[in-house]
């Protein structure tokens, strides 16, 4: 994994420049990690339940809704309420695309998936407070609508 290669190189560079500082960095890392752990555990509990109630196949089935505006609403709800890594989402969306699901609906789904996180609220709230978290997620929802509509226009799926 490239990521851990980078972490290791930086850690070694740091260690050979200043051992004390590096130890302090590791202490900070550990303290922060354990500090936020309860919020992460709560998030994982929510994720595990949501994944049971809304498995990937079910979400994908719902996105295939005939009516485009209903499809949009379902896409945004599903995108906000689930957590899926990119390497799962995009291949699935590619399949849906081939089945004729509009780009607009897929864009609403992927953009809310990226920007709006109900399941990550426990973690977000812990850092930024509930107010900021809610306002930021609300803004993400609005941005997702705009992105989806523009996508629909560009791909001529909707007309003004």
């Amino acid at each position, binding site marked *: 994994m490239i*990521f851990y290669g980078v*972490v290791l190189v930086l*850690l070694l560079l*740091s260690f050979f420049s200043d051992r004390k500082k590096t130890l*302090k*960095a*590791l202490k*900070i*890392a*550990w*303290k*922060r*990690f354990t*500090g*936020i752990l309860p*919020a*992460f*555990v*709560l*998030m*994982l*509990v929510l*994720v*595990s*339940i949501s994944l*049971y109630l809304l498995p990937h196949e079910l979400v994908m089935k719902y996105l295939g809704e005939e009516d485009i505006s209903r499809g949009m609403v379902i896409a945004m709800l599903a995108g906000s309420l689930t*957590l899926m*890594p*990119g*390497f799962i989402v*995009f*291949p699935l*969306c*590619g399949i849906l695309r081939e089945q004729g699901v509009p*780009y607009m609906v*897929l*864009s609403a789904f*992927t*953009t809310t998936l*990226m*920007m709006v*996180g109900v399941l*990550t609220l*426990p973690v*977000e709230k*812990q*850092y*930024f*407070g509930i*107010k*900021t978290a809610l306002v*930021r997620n609300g*803004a*993400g929802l*609005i*941005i997702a609508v*705009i*992105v989806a509509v523009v*996508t629909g226009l*560009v791909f001529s799926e909707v007309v003004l």
Partner: protein
Amino acid sequence: MKARFSTVLFAVYSVFVVASLVFGFQPGKDIGNNFLAFTLSMLKILPGAFILIGLFQVWVSRKRVEKHLGEESSFLGFLWVLLLAGTTVGGLYIAFPVAYALYEKGARIQVVLAYLGFAAVSRIPMMIFEASFMGVKFTFVRLAVSIPLVVVSAVILGRYLKASNWKMTSPQ
């Protein structure tokens, strides 16, 4: 009080999952499996991310962050966090502690919010995946629309939060 609530919740959840395993209750077993799978995939990234945050804390001076991302920083500040977000791994849950570390070092709230938005929509590894399955046009439209909107919303939200005397909560 709040810590106690999540402890109780987690205890109830654990008992439920373990009981499901013992009595063969399928939904509970599925939920337990989901929990394990997600925990494992998150544990692959979290330690590395927190080590980077620790290194950032000791090596990058507050002055430097303030100069480039703080109250006096120019529009370039948004460009810096766009670059940082492009290389962010994992999902938003990794971006939250990173954003908090930036804020603590003196980045202004508008820039921090923009970072969170960028980290959501413009992570490079994710976009490569997206473009290869959805087409370059799809990815391009999404980016071209969402990046300016992220900046606009970050500026508006930042002003609103400042005007309403908002304070960042500490995770500890």
